[in-house]
């Protein structure tokens, strides 16, 4: 059965969180920091690629959240709003940082997911995927991590937010400011490459 990944967002009680932040409630701030900071840092790192700068981005973003909380209109979830701030701060820093990767162009639709040589002329498998039996899960995760790291920027961002963080497509589109169609193409390219990399390692494993 096809299952769309729905966003696991729970916005119930968000009004109370926002009110508590406006009232400068340290306990609520601390809870939000503990909940979101690891993912904020990972998102920042997709833009800036230096741990130190990522930490600065996270700090600047939290300050932006505090300074902007009075203006937050709850048109998106608090989480989406917070991560949009992270993306904006990180984007600005990423442009300033000469080391950062340039924005990649839109994913091209004609990039094949599987090497065309693995199919017969009629489109049936010539060299079909073999069941994975050799790679240990931890080794598989190491390959996945390294492959994601090497993906073009937008593919890396989309697969990280969707499959690593477990976000819904709607949240990813809102934070990265991309269309649903583009998000799906980027996710498809990224997942296909990661699967192919695991397969390659599986074949090479002894």
């Amino acid at each position, binding site marked *: 059965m*096809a*299952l*769309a*990944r729905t966003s696991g967002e729970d916005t119930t009680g968000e009004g109370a969180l926002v009110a508590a932040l406006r009232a*400068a409630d*340290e306990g609520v*701030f*601390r809870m939000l*920091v*503990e909940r979101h*900071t*690891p*993912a904020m840092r990972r998102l920042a790192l997709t833009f800036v690629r230096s741990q130190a700068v990522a*930490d600065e981005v*996270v*700090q600047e973003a*939290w*300050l932006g959240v*505090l*300074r902007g909380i009075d203006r937050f209109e709850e048109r998106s979830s608090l989480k989406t709003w917070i991560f949009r701030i992270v993306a904006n701060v990180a984007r600005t820093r990423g442009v300033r940082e000469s080391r950062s990767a340039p924005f990649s162009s839109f994913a091209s639709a004609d990039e*094949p*997911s*599987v090497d*065309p040589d693995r*199919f017969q002329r*009629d*489109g*049936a*498998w010539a060299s*079909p*995927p*073999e*069941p*994975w039996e050799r790679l240990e*899960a931890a080794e*598989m*995760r190491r390959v*996945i*991590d390294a492959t*994601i790291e090497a993906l073009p920027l937008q593919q890396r961002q989309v*697969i990280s937010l969707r*499959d*690593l*963080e*477990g976000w819904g*497509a709607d949240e990813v589109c809102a934070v990265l400011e991309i269309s649903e169609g583009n998000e*799906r193409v980027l*996710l*498809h390219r990224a*997942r*296909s490459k*990661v*699967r192919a990399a*695991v*397969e390659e390692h599986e074949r090479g494993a002894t």
Partner: protein
Amino acid sequence: MMLRAPKLKCQEVVELVTDYLEGSLSRRDRRRFEAHIAGCPHCSEYLAQLRETIEQTGRLREDDLEPAVLDELLDVFAEWRRDRL
């Protein structure tokens, strides 16, 4: 009368897996996709591998926050609160 849709080829199936998993195929295409998977052990394996990849990717998440980072952010908060009051 409905026209019978041409059968999907394996090479097409591997390009549709994400749309399938995202639930964004039309009803007709989803039926074609599922019919192909049901009859093709190779594409069925491909789909299983993609699901395994997604599953393992989700396990890469680590949600530990270093105490020093938390402390710095609480300092930012305290400063903001001082300015605000």
